[in-house]
């Protein structure tokens, strides 16, 4: 028997390491420089700070509306995701159980929305939001995000409910449980992993959306994090460590969340793509 020499994968590690550096280099410069004094950035932009400077963070957090923007984003993102999950699960429950030509059409109608970018309807949406009196408020974003999140929710959740074995609900049916009882006592609990996939799939697009806040919201009180970042970027134009602190504060929460559950993230974010 021939013994194969152990492969060292030089080429593979070489290529992947180069890309790793290309990915991490911008993030590294962003983070280390946000802790430097203004002029140290120009002198030595790549090393760790000689003197750690937290002033930029303090002034961003204290003197600007950053925390307000952050709270607004959190409010819209979480609120919209909860609504997508609730409405999506109710609709999926109906679509999985109600076998009829009409329900198949409604299902196809929802799923078609996965490929359609809602941005194309922006002009009409802007008129609608104005007519509803929601313009310039954070509430204008809810209906749009919920509508945007529903197609993938209906798709993933309907598939999931269809695969739940009948035996699991049989006992409840024998006990005379009604439809809604079965839904909230049994289905919702079994649905948890699918709900998590849907939540992650929508989390990043909602949190990272710039377009709709930009066209709907002008008032500082109602700005989302990213829209706020555009304002702060202009405001701190000459002070790079402050700009970098703003960017770091905007990017780090999602990165940390991603690093803590990267498997689910990758699965969630590519779910619609691979299945659709």
């Amino acid at each position, binding site marked *: 028997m021939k013994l194969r020499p152990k492969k060292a*994968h030089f080429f593979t590690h070489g290529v992947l390491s180069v890309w790793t550096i290309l*990915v991490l280099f911008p993030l590294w410069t962003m983070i280390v420089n946000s802790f430097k004094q203004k002029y140290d950035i120009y002198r030595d932009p790549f090393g760790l700070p000689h003197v750690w400077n937290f002033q930029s963070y303090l002034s961003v957090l204290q003197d600007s509306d950053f925390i307000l923007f952050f709270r607004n984003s959190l409010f819209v993102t979480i609120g919209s995701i909860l609504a997508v999950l609730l409405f999506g699960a109710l609709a999926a429950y109906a679509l999985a*159980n109600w076998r009829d030509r009409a329900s198949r059409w409604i299902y196809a109608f929802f799923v078609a929305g996965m490929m359609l*970018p*809602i941005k194309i309807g922006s*002009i009409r949406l802007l008129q609608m939001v104005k007519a509803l009196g929601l313009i310039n408020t954070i509430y204008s974003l809810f209906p749009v995000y919920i509508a945007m999140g529903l197609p993938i929710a209906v798709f993933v959740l309907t598939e999931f409910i269809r695969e739940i074995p009948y035996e699991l609900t049989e006992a409840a049916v024998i006990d005379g449980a009604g439809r809604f009882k079965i839904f909230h006592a049994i289905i919702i609990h079994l649905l948890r992993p699918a709900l998590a996939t849907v939540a992650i799939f929508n989390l990043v697009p909602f949190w990272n959306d710039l377009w709709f806040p930009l066209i709907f919201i002008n008032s500082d009180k109602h700005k989302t994090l990213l829209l706020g970042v555009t304002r702060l970027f202009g405001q701190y134009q000459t002070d*790079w460590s402050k700009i970098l602190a703003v960017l770091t504060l905007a990017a780090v929460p999602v990165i940390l969340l991603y690093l803590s559950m990267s498997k689910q993230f990758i699965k969630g974010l590519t779910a619609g793509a691979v299945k659709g």
Partner: protein
Amino acid sequence: MIQLNRQSTLRQRGGTALRWLIYLAPALLLYTAFMAFPLFDSVRLSFFKSGSFLSKDFVGFDNYINALRFWSAFGNTWYFFFIHMVVQNILGILFAVLLMEKGLKGTGIYRTIIFIPATLAVLVTGYLWKLILNPQWGALAILLNKLGLTQFSLPWLGDARYALTTVSLVSAWQWVGMPTMMFLAGLQNISDDMYEAADIAGATKLQTFWYITLPLLRPVIGIVTILTFVGNFNAFDVVFAMENVNGAPLYSTDIMGTLFYRVGIAGQHPVSIPDPGMGAAIATTTFLILALGSALVLRLTSESIEKQARI
């Protein structure tokens, strides 16, 4: 003995339809009102003068004809798409193939890192690279000067010759993780028997890749193409962050997304009055391009699409 089955309990027909509709109502109403309706009504809007629906303001195809003046944005978007396709497919397939190598250590770490940029906001990526590429104080300029490569220390974003390529590459840098993960999933579905057979037949690595891996990845390439296509024709944030809504310098980075914003929402320089009718015409054109393009790609690349559409 009680006969219980699906038909008699949960899945009845007829009178129950109305009751299921109650479960469907919230999702159906929101989705119809805020997604389906604005999408399709934009088409109607595109045939009227500046956003009204009065019959005297019907202008036929005038909005479309006027929008033709901005032909360059259309061409720029195709170029933007072209760069993405080259970078994402080549790097995506390369990374996926490398990550599949047997006995490779650290695949989990590489995978996590490759995907990081895709979780960042496009705006943050754009701003960050704009700072790095600053020709005077940017990290890249400093790095190049230290290495003595001053001839490459150019205004990458300020020169109309390079700006669009630079912006496209930054955007591709951000999204490479997506296709990589999809190709990886595609490769994991290819059975080992295929490779063993090729190995026994004495195929070289390159032959195996060319005759086995690549053809089997075709459906994935199709999906990646469609997603990139839809994403690129709607892109806006990256140009907004790195250049501005005018697609500076000299409109060289103006793409459909920025054009749509300027014409339909913010208003063109110097009048600054939005023209919703023409904006809707641009949106409808984008919509048609996406629909036709996606249908074409699906036909060309996939036999398994039928399987997926059946779901």
